[in-house]
């Protein structure tokens, strides 16, 4: 039929998405930064001058050295060293790994959990929904410090534990968001079409509703990932964060906190800067995602 001519050339969803994404220069910079940060974190063992987690190579005699000093083992500590003699550059590179892992893994887990429960609440309705949403309320009212402290008490410190704590603290946000959008999606006619085509509840929920609830999840995921990273820093500051000897960025900052007034600015400043860059990059990407994924702003 002659309609063919009238149609725009086919473009995959991803292609369209990517095109719209890169239209914004600031977002591109953010994406570039994020890629650099992730690369640097991945390559840390190869580019860091020191293995900051190996207590045999960290020497307390090197502690509190200003940027550019030489370590006992000979290499230059470009960003100086922290209170126990850890090379800050190495500490930041490795810390970035942990922080990103913590942020991303807790984000993914919390998102999955929240997604499932939020979806279920919206789809099932009735008592299931009431129950899930009450637990969400409960979760949102529980101080995160307390949750983390209880979990640390039960399980001990560690990356996995902090991730668990962050998941426990954050899943409810996802559940709330997903439920809200799933409630909207559920009323759309394509869901009725699926029912009328005799497709099962599970299939309708997972194949039809779920993909359409992902956009807001992705958006809050970027914010929550950034938030998780800085929350981990706060928890470390409050003494319930990650282990001392394998510091994340948050631990490095928290440890440097006591030096802030002493003139040894670098101990907390450089990790802070790294955290800032990471979170800004994630948020720039997230902001753009929000715009790109928001159908209402798509003219």
């Amino acid at each position: 039929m002659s309609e063919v001519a009238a149609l725009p050339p086919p473009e995959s969803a991803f292609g369209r998405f990517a095109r719209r994404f890169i239209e914004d220069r600031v977002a591109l910079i953010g994406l570039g930064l994020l890629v650099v940060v992730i690369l640097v974190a991945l390559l840390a063992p190869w580019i860091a001058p020191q293995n900051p987690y190996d207590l045999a190579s960290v020497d307390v005699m090197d502690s509190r050295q200003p940027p550019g000093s030489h370590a006992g083992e000979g290499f230059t500590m470009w960003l100086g060293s922290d209170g126990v003699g850890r090379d800050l550059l190495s500490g930041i590179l490795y810390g970035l790994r942990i922080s990103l892992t913590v942020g991303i893994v807790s984000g993914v887990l919390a998102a999955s959990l929240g997604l499932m429960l939020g979806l279920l609440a919206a789809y099932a309705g009735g008592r299931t929904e009431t129950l899930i949403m009450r637990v969400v309320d409960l979760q949102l009212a529980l101080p995160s410090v307390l949750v983390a402290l209880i979990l640390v008490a039960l399980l001990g410190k560690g990356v996995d534990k902090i991730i668990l704590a962050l998941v426990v603290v954050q899943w409810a946000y996802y559940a709330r968001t997903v439920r809200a959008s799933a409630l909207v999606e559920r009323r759309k006619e394509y869901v009725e079409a699926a029912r009328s085509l005799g497709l099962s509840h599970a299939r309708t929920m997972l194949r039809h509703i779920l993909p359409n609830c992902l956009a807001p999840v992705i958006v809050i995921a970027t914010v929550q990932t950034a938030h998780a990273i800085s929350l981990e820093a706060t928890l470390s500051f409050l003494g319930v964060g990650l282990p001392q000897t394998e510091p994340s960025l948050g631990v490095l900052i928290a440890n440097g906190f006591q030096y802030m007034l002493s003139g040894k600015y670098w101990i907390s400043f450089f990790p802070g800067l790294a955290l800032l860059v990471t979170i800004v990059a994630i948020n720039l990407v997230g902001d753009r995602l929000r715009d790109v994924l928001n159908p209402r702003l798509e003219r």
Partner: protein
Amino acid sequence: MSELLRLTGISKRFTKSVDLAGRIANVLGAKNVPRVVHAVDDVDLVVSAGEVVGLVGESGCGKSTLGRVIAGIHPPSAGAVFWEGRDINAMDAEAQKAFTLGVQMIFQDPMSSLNPRMRAGEIVGEAPRVHGFTDAQGQRAYVDALFQQVGLDPEYKQRLPHQFSGGQRARIGIARALAVKPRLLVCDESVAALDVSIQAQVLNLFMDLREQLGLAYVFISHDLGVVRHIADRVVIMYLGRVVESGPRAAIFGTPQHPYTRALLENVPRLDARKRRFVTVKGEIPSPLDPPPGCHFHPRCPHAGPRCSREVPVKTAASQGHIVACHLADGGVD
């Protein structure tokens, strides 16, 4: 023509009950009452094989709800649905599936009725694969055939819904419904969102499919022009109730119910130039709080005291022509 679907005494109520907190508040003197919408109220309907039934009425009168009951999406609150003469609640799973697939719905909004994240080919091909109409290898050919049947290039299978025009989306919706080999299509305002020129194409497609596949339709529309064009029988609804039903010629030729007459008068027509618009007075009442007796009486020019007291019963005005009005049933006084 054999009977395909029969509805008897179908009602659909949406109830919002008073919860515990509300009941406690009532004890304390508040007045929380359950809110009930009689979206569909005691409707009888028969659809024969290959027949087109037009369902007409104004916004909120329960057309879509009735359509959903027919399509098995909503269970009715009261009444029975018979599929090929058998009560669907008394059927085994197999037969029930045959009913579910045998009635398909085509929706008003071509955009929201297509999953925006699925490709056209998938949208059409999912259900037949799940239900075993075709297997993974055969799916391609199966879907291609459907695309051609509704006048779409199979090339478009890889596209997402937003990459289609309104008319094409409507066609995908039709192909999706046809994919499970239905016998009855419920078209809920399926052409209302389309431009006239595209609407004409889709109406033509419906008529072609009817001829080729012997499909029956329940054609929901508020556009009397469209219904007059396509329907064999017409059902007029007002606030959840059927006020008049009958063969097309009877409804358009000798309308009995004052509401039907008002509707017909109010329809703008190409051949009525610079006319003075005469109107039914008043607003459409809220289905939450419908007027007593005959729902139409506050707006009816002929209303009498009986109309606000008694619910009119269905009377046969002629063969197959049924009207629910006191005028046809002993007067309004």
